Every structure is written in structure tokens, then in C-alpha cells.
């Protein structure tokens, strides 16, 4: 297995290189330039000097190779807009994103899997139908709109929760304050991930429950609950793990809208700012970090497969 993991890491490095090349290519071909150059008060001479200072005057391949050369040593460069080290800027956003994505994932798993199981064991029942419809609605709701609605309901009307941010200024650091700020963004984040986990669990479990080994087990008179949880559920988890493996990167990096609506100081908002400001080094850095998250998440998923189903091995 360690051999396999080593092999995966080498493979991952190649993937990172390709991803960075594609990202760089996309950035270079995107119209518009870095926002700091879009200043009507800059004379052509100022602009030329600025481009030179930032290394933007060099041919694209040279810029890319320089970036790779520095990235290998862990130097992701400096933000064009904020002038700070990219690694430092990403680093300080990681805790906020981890807290939010973690809360979203926990909610998704704690509610999604049991709900899927209940729905699957009673297909066609009221619970099943309500859950299925709710999941459809959840996936269809735009996060932006849902976020604003929650704010109007819980913050403006009911005055139960703070409308946005991570901490109340002055109360920074208290867990109770953090929890109150966490409720709504977590709900919005889970609104897209929870239905997927529920529906996948449901479909997969229904499929498994129809299989011969379940029928055999039932025929031998084993306890229904035991069959369900010991045998059927475990066998149904492979596709669920797959979807969770795909959801994790989306929870971490895909929370752009949630983080913007709720003024959450995480990586999603940083990447939105980077994109609008055409902050090339920052875009590259965030993409790189996100690629690592995807790769690690895939690797963990694969390892989880072997735990759930011993027949699967890492090759």
C-alpha cells in the first residue's frame, strides 16, 4: 500500500504541473488585465514601469517557468493587489474555510446518510417522498438567494442570529459567537451537499437491498437491522464515499458565493477577489492549493474504499 501511495504522490505532482499550466494559460488568455493597471491616472510610462516591476512585461512562457521555479521551493509569489505573500494570504484564510467546510461536511454526513437510509428502507413512504422532494428543492435553490432569505428571516425578522461575518467585532475568539455566525453559512453550504449524499445513499442502499446476499441473509432469518447496518449499508457506501470525495473540494473551495454573501473570511472569497482583480499569482496559488485538496481528498477516498470493502486494494 505504501508503494501505491508513493506512486500516487508522484502522479499527483504531475497533475499539479498540468493544472498549473492550464490555469496559467487560461489567465493569460482571459480578457482584461490586473486591476491595479486599470487606473486612469497612470501614464503610459507609469504603466510600463509597473508592468516591469511586476514581471508582466516578460513573455508568458518565461513568466510561467519563473513561477514554477519559485513554487517548487514553496514560494508562490506576491499578490499583485495586496502585495503580500500569496502563501501567507492563503494560510490565514485556511482556518475560516476549514471551520465552515468542516461544519458543512459534518451536517451533511450526520443528516444525509441517516436520511438516505430511512428513505431507502421505506421507499415510497411519506418520509421517502418528502425527503426526495426536499432534496430536489435543495439542489435547485441558488445559494445566493437562499443565503439572503436566511439573513432576512433569522437576522432581520427574528433577530436570532448575526447576519454575516465570522466574529462580532470586539468579541473575536469566543466559541459561542463563532457558532452563532456559523449557523446560516453552514445551512447554505449543506443545502447543496446534503441532498446529494442523501440521494446517493438512498439509491445505493435500495440497489444493495435487492441483491442476492441480502435476500439470502433475510432467508436465513438474520435480524433485519443487523443485515441493514452490518451488511447492506456497508456495501452501499462505495458510491457514497465517491460523492463525498467529490464534495469535499467543493465545500472547501466552492464556497465562493456562500462566503461572499456571509462575508466569511475564507478562501472562497479570496479566490473571488483574486479573479475580479486579475491577481495572477493569487489565482495560481489558490488553484494550486485547491488541486492539492482534490488530490488528497481522492486519495483519502481511495483509502476509505479499502476500509469499507477489503476486496479493494490500492494498486
Amino acid at each position, binding site marked *: 500500500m505504501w508503494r501505491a501511495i508513493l506512486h500516487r504522490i508522484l502522479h499527483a505532482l504531475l497533475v499539479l504541473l498540468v493544472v498549473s499550466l492550464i490555469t496559467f494559460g487560461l489567465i493569460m488568455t482571459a*480578457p*482584461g488585465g490586473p486591476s491595479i493597471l486599470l487606473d*486612469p491616472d497612470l501614464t503610459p510610462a507609469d504603466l510600463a514601469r509597473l508592468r516591469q516591476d511586476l514581471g508582466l512585461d516578460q513573455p508568458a512562457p518565461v513568466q510561467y517557468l519563473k513561477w514554477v521555479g519559485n513554487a517548487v521551493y514553496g514560494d508562490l509569489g506576491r499578490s499583485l493587489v495586496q502585495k503580500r505573500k500569496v502563501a501567507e494570504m492563503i494560510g490565514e484564510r485556511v482556518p475560516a474555510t476549514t471551520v465552515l467546510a468542516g461544519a458543512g461536511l459534518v451536517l451533511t454526513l450526520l443528516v444525509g446518510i441517516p436520511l438516505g437510509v430511512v428513505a431507502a428502507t421505506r421507499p415510497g413512504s411519506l418520509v421517502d417522498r418528502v425527503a426526495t422532494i426536499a432534496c430536489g428543492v435543495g439542489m435547485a435553490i441558488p445559494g445566493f438567494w437562499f443565503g439572503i432569505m436566511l439573513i432576512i428571516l433569522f437576522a432581520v425578522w427574528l433577530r436570532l442570529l448575526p447576519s454575516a461575518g465570522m466574529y462580532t467585532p470586539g468579541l473575536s475568539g469566543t466559541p459561542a459567537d463563532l457558532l452563532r455566525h456559523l449557523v446560516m453559512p453552514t445551512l447554505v453550504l449543506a443545502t447543496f451537499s446534503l441532498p446529494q449524499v442523501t440521494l446517493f445513499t438512498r439509491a445505493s442502499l435500495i440497489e444493495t437491498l435487492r441483491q442476492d446476499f441480502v435476500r439470502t441473509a433475510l432467508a436465513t432469518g438474520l435480524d433485519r437491522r443487523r443485515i441493514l447496518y452490518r451488511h447492506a449499508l456497508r456495501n452501499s457506501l462505495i458510491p457514497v464515499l465517491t460523492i463525498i470525495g467529490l464534495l469535499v473540494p467543493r465545500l472547501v473551495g466552492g464556497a465562493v458565493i456562500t462566503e461572499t454573501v456571509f462575508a466569511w473570511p475564507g478562501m472562497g472569497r479570496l479566490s473571488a477577489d483574486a479573479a475580479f482583480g486579475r491577481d495572477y499569482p493569487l489565482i495560481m496559488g489558490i488553484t494550486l492549493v485547491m488541486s492539492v485538496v482534490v488530490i488528497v481528498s481522492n486519495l483519502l477516498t481511495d483509502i476509505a474504499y479499502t476500509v469499507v470493502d477489503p476486496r479493494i486494494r490500492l494498486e
Partner: protein
Amino acid sequence: MTTGRTDEREERMHAYEVTRRGFLRSAAAAGAATSFASLWAGPVEAQQPRRGGTLRMPINADPVLNPILTMGIQSTTICKVLYSGLTRPDPVTLEPRPDLAKSWQVSQDGLAWTFTLRENVKWHDGKPFTAEDVKWTLETRATAKGAWRGPRAVKAVESVGPHVVRIHLSQPFAPLAVLMGFTQYIGPKHLLDGKEQAEFVEFNKKNPIGTGPFKIKEFVTGQHVTLAANPDYFLGPPYLDSFVFKVVPDVNVQVAQLKTGELDFALIEPQNIAAVKGAPGLKLDVADYVNHYYIAFQIKNPLFADPRVRLAMIYALDRQAIVDKVLLGYGTVATGTISPALGWAYNPNLKPLPFDPQKALALLAEAGWKPGSGGVLSKDGKPFKFTLSVDKGNPAREQAATIAQQFYKKLGMDVTLETMEWATFASKRWLAREYDAMYMWWITSPDPDQLDYYGTGGPNNHTHYSNAEVDKVLLEAQQTTDRERRRQLYHRYQELQMGDPPLATLYYPKEIRAMNAKLVVPQVGYRDALTHTEAWYYTA
């Protein structure tokens, strides 16, 4: 969002008859029960300032708090509170008033400005402020990477004594005093000298030191910047205890936070008014600010070279309809490019050109454009065809551009609307000067000087407008420091624009602020009001 609210509209129309200074007068007059003031802001004069309180206002993104650098609106907003300039704009007329400088004189030839500095000013770290700080700041602006450049006319800065600074110019430049109070905030030499400004994170992002009425207390990345009252502020301690700038990027969320009491002051768009109006504990307030919105026509394009065509482009537009529909009345139709917020320079005798499609057609006919087959205007067999570009994502601007397109289509022009995301729009159209027509605006300093914008070859003259008499008038107005002479020249400039418009100015928008009902803020645009935060207060 734009449901009919006749009562509110009438109220507003009444309100707009009251000019800014008229407003102050009427607010000051006893028993002005039905005035603008009582409808919107409450009777200001009757309320006593209270010491203390926190003011929370939103910013869109993380700031960089170095006064030397140009780092986006969120940074300048806070720098205006943390730092001081040599001057600052008057909270009513916007004319330059003493700030770090207590007085200034201009030499006979207009080439040397001597600023006498206050002697009781201390940096937030307790060190004395001196002429060396001013000299260092202005010199560093000219050379540092990423610096906000000073006026081009500044040639050299001389520290004449510990509290006297002389600025030498390459040519006379009347706006100097205004600009010194608009963007040219002074930084501490003893902390910044010798540093790479853009990379000095310890100062820029953690512990900025200024001379303003509030000093840094806490900087939480991605969350908020808290400033605390500076008890040693040179004009005496401010009323408020603290200022919190919260990062809240979404305007809908800003509105929600106003309603929940999590914010005390925010600029809002006309379409947010319905959500805020009548909310308990909040009031709406409007101010004029120095901004003009326009549709620019590329004069290099032969289509728009003839001034009669540009005049026709104005007559063809029902600009009042745009103000009513898009701004919900929160603006006034423009006469030219000088905003009435610059009271002394604005020419009150001019009336905006009326909406008159017949007149527009007549002018176009004079210029050779006649209705051809299908009513399309054409000249020498070519149709009147152009693209109108606007940036994407701001509903009001897209809507206004669409309305303009409709008016031009009605006249028989073939108009294509093009929307582009801001960064693309700015680089490919605006700054590249490659457009036929473009919906844009200029927010300028509180000085009427527009030589850079509408003078021949000016760095911001993206339409390539050129009028020899305008050049002459603008140059003289830029160089003379005689206020009365300047006034006459700018009045003349505005008259010239009526006959040879550089572009189709649309309107002067109002700044709409929603705020805590007990908050009292100078009645000028927030950019300028923020240079007077020591005087912001809550009523008892």
C-alpha cells in the same frame, strides 16, 4: 423593484427643489416641519451631540492602510480617518480649509506654495509631526512602487523650517490646495523611510500610524478594522469612541445589517431604498458629490466628429426619464461636466438641454444624416451604426444604457448594446479608448479643474475631444489662483460645452446614505465627510 410609489416621488420632487445649502438653511430655520430635513433626516439643529458611541460602516474588501499607496476604495476610505492632509475640504462648500497646515500662501508667479504647519500635531505613536514628514511623503509618492502619485506640477518640496514647507511647481497650478486634502495624505517618515512601501506588511496591515482623529486598534484580516478615538488629536478628541470598518462585500447584506443594527452607516443604491425606508432606528440622507455620468462618443470615429451630432445625441435622450427610472429620482439632469456639488464653480444660469427628438433629427440632417429605407439614418449610403458599451453586473448602469439604446433606435440609429465584465470593459474599452460609445462616469476631486479630462491631449481625455477655446479657458483657470477669475472661467467653460459638448453628460447622481437615525454626518459626499470624522456624532 421599481413599484409605483407616487407619494414618495412627490416628496422627493419637493425635496430636490431644496439645494444642499438651501437644505442647511431650511434645516436651521425653526419650524421647517415639512422640509426635506424633517422628512428624511430629522431636525438636525435641535439635537445635542453626545460623546461616545461606535460607528460601524462597511467596506468591500481588505484594505492596505499605507497613505502612500493606491489600494482601492476600501483603503482610501479608512486612510481618510487615520491620516490627515495639509488641507481638507470644507464640510459645506468643499473649498480647501486648514488641516495639518494652518495657512498657506502662493507666490506672485504661482510657482511656490508655502504651507505653514500646525505645531501641536503628534503621530499616533507620540512622535511629533514636522515638515520633514510632508517633504518625505510628497517625494516618496513620486518614486515609490505602487504609490499614489502627487500632482504632476509638483517639482520639488522644500522643508523651510520645522513647521514650514514650500512646494515648488513647474507651472502654476491652482487645484494644489484642494488635491492636498483629497488624496495626498501625509505618512510618518520615521516609520516608513527606507522601506519598500508596498511590502511593509507590519505597517500596512497591522499597525498603521497616522495623525487623524482615530487610531488603529485592531485589524482582523477579512473581517474588520477597528479604530479608536485619538485623545491627542490636534483639533481635540472626537465625539465618537470608535470606528469599525466591517468587510461586507454584498450590498444586500449591507442593507440587512443596517436593519439589524449591525451597521450604522452605508451607501445604498436607489433600488435598496424601499428596504430601508421606514425601518425603525434608521434614516435616509442624500448628499451631492462631485460626479458626472455620461455617454462618451469616440470623436476619432468620424460618426461623432461633428459637434452637431454630439448635440443631437443629447437632445435624443430623455435624461429625466433615466433619472426617474434608474435612479428613482436620486439625481439631477446634467448641464455639463461640472457638478453642482462644486457650488462656486457651477454655472447656475444654464439649463440642461431638453429632450427634443425633432431638434435632434434636424441637427443630424444638418450634419448630413437623413432617414433612408426603413427609417434608418444614413449618410452617403452608410447607416448610422454604432456599439454602446457598458460594464456588466451593475443593474442600474445596464438599465440606463438599455434605455439610451432605445432612444437612439427610435431616432433611426442602429445601436448594438455590449456588456462586458468590469476588468475587460476597463482595459479593452475605457483605457484602450477603443469604443464607439460608452456609458461611464467620473468622480473627481472637489476642484473644477478638468484640463486632464477635456483639454486637448489630456491624459484622461479618452474621447479625444478638442476645442481650442475650451483649452485656453481650462488652462487659464488651472493656473490662476484668483477665485473670482476662476469662477468666471469655469462658467464660460460650461457655456462652451452647451454648444460643443465633449460627450453626452447624463446626470449628477445623489449619494444616498442609510444610517442610524441618531447619527449626524456632514452633508457632503462621504469621501469628503470622512475627512471630518472628529465632528461625526450621535445625538443624545
